[in-house]
């Protein structure tokens, strides 16, 4: 019987994969994709806990919507930054991004 444990475990595994992606990748777009995976894991937690702990209201689903909104804003600004840096550096490799370092 599938319960809250299983959903939380699925979210934990997805979050761990996202953490690994952030550490082990060099391409800036790949790191943004890993962050999206982590945000999805958080959304699963919100909705699962809403269903199993507080079935009488929908606050968890509401917060999942806010997370989706912030994620959309984050990914649009992040990709615009990557495109803007690419125009100067001709690279999306994070180790080449040292514009703020002197």
């Amino acid at each position, binding site marked *: *019987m*599938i319960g*809250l*444990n*299983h*959903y939380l*475990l*699925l979210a*934990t*595994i*997805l979050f*761990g*994969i*996202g*953490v*690994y*992606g*952030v*550490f*082990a*990748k*060099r*391409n800036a*777009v*790949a790191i*943004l994709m*890993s962050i*999206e*995976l982590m945000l*999805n894991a958080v*959304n*699963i937690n919100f*909705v699962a806990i809403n*269903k*199993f*702990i*507080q*079935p*009488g*209201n*929908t606050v968890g*689903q509401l917060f999942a*919507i806010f997370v*989706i*909104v*912030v*994620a*959309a*804003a*984050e*990914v*649009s*600004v992040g*990709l*615009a930054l990557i*495109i*803007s840096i*690419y125009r100067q550096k*001709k*690279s999306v490799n994070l180790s080449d991004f040292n514009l703020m370092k002197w």
Partner: protein
Amino acid sequence: MGITLNDVVFVGVSGLTILAALGVVLSRNIIHSALALILAFLGVAVTFFQLGAGFIGLVQILVYAGAISVLIIFAIMLVMNVDAAQTNSPNPSRATQLWGALVALLLVIGLGGAIWFSELMPVLGPLPVADAVGAIAELLLGNYVAAFEAAAVLLLLAVVGAIILAKGVEEE
């Protein structure tokens, strides 16, 4: 309690989602990563449907699997200047990869163990709300209206900022 169809679907879909997520971080071609990401988003959407959150599932498909994936693929097309097969190669430093794997593994084992071995009793609370979309709408335009407006302004500012950043400043 026996195994119901819901359990079988959950195991299948979550396995597929995890495999797709692994594909995102392990693939060496970033186009393949992006396509695996779409699959992972769809798997998460099915998980939402299973949890009885149909509206969130549809928003997930529209916003993530639709809009954000297209945005990511567009960005990849705009910034790709080397052979696609090496666009997403992992960090050449072995130590960084090992650290990443170690941190992720410890996180999953620690949190997963904590979740697995704790007693999460099912709450015999009130019945689930029948009209979830209506309840969300009432919260969104009632108690949480300030957060709703702030989110709207944030989204508008982010999109305008993204346009300015991506367009670049014209040198006079």
